[in-house]
């Protein structure tokens, strides 16, 4: 089954890498949307049919943590699976993001195959 993915990261380079990794993985991606921060992500989520959100944490205007908070307050968006992709590997941060509803957490740097595996696991669990 193909999925629509939203990549939220303020680094265009990282968005490009994630997009390429997705295309090369066995996770079947139909459409790949991109947002520079949480605010842009919310705009896209309100108009596009997104199946999963991949978000960084440290971003200008609205962080990944704030994005999760906003999504958790919305009846529809709170149902969307969110996977965090961040350099922050601290237990404190992982706990905090999980508490806000994140369904997966991949730390940067990551091996290319890691992301596809994590995403497939996410939908098997769902």
């Amino acid at each position: 089954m193909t999925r629509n993915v939203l990549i939220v990261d303020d680094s265009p380079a990282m968005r490009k890498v994630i997009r390429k990794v997705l295309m090369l993985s066995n996770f079947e991606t139909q459409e790949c949307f991109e947002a520079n921060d949480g605010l842009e992500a919310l705009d896209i989520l309100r108009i596009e049919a997104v199946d999963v959100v991949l978000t960084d944490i440290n971003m200008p205007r609205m962080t990944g943590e704030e994005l999760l908070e906003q999504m958790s307050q919305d009846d529809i968006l709170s149902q969307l699976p969110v996977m965090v992709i961040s350099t922050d590997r601290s237990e404190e941060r992982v706990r905090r993001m999980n508490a806000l509803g994140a369904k997966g957490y991949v730390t940067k740097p990551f091996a290319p195959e890691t992301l596809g595996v994590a995403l497939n696991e996410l939908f098997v669990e769902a």
Partner: protein
Amino acid sequence: MSVEQISATLQTAMTEVLESMCFILPGEPVDMAAFAGEPWMEHTLTFHGPEEGRFGIRAPRPVAVRIASDFLGEDPVDLSEQQVGEVMNELANMVCGNVLGHCYHDHAFALTSPTVMNPITQEQGAQFDWEEGVLVAWVKTY
């Protein structure tokens, strides 16, 4: 934690990031004469949390282009100056986050968006060498 202790993890962090994201493995030091007269690119950010400080990476421009090419999977001649800068920014972000993760397992940090440092510093924390280039990283705490 002392800046020396944090700096001790720089090598490990650079190795992990370059291996995972660029498929670059450590090797014999390159002849630095090859980069004589080449400009260097330096990108820095600040981190805030249980420790406050500044982190930076720098490389000769041709090396930065090579890293960007490996990172993005693009031919070096197709890369714009902006793309090379964006990859150096992301590299700074990942190496710094990796260093802090090694040093402070249970504490979250906020990292600012990396920016270009101009003129470049002479700061030296650790150096990653391979056959085709060199990457320098440094960290300072306040």
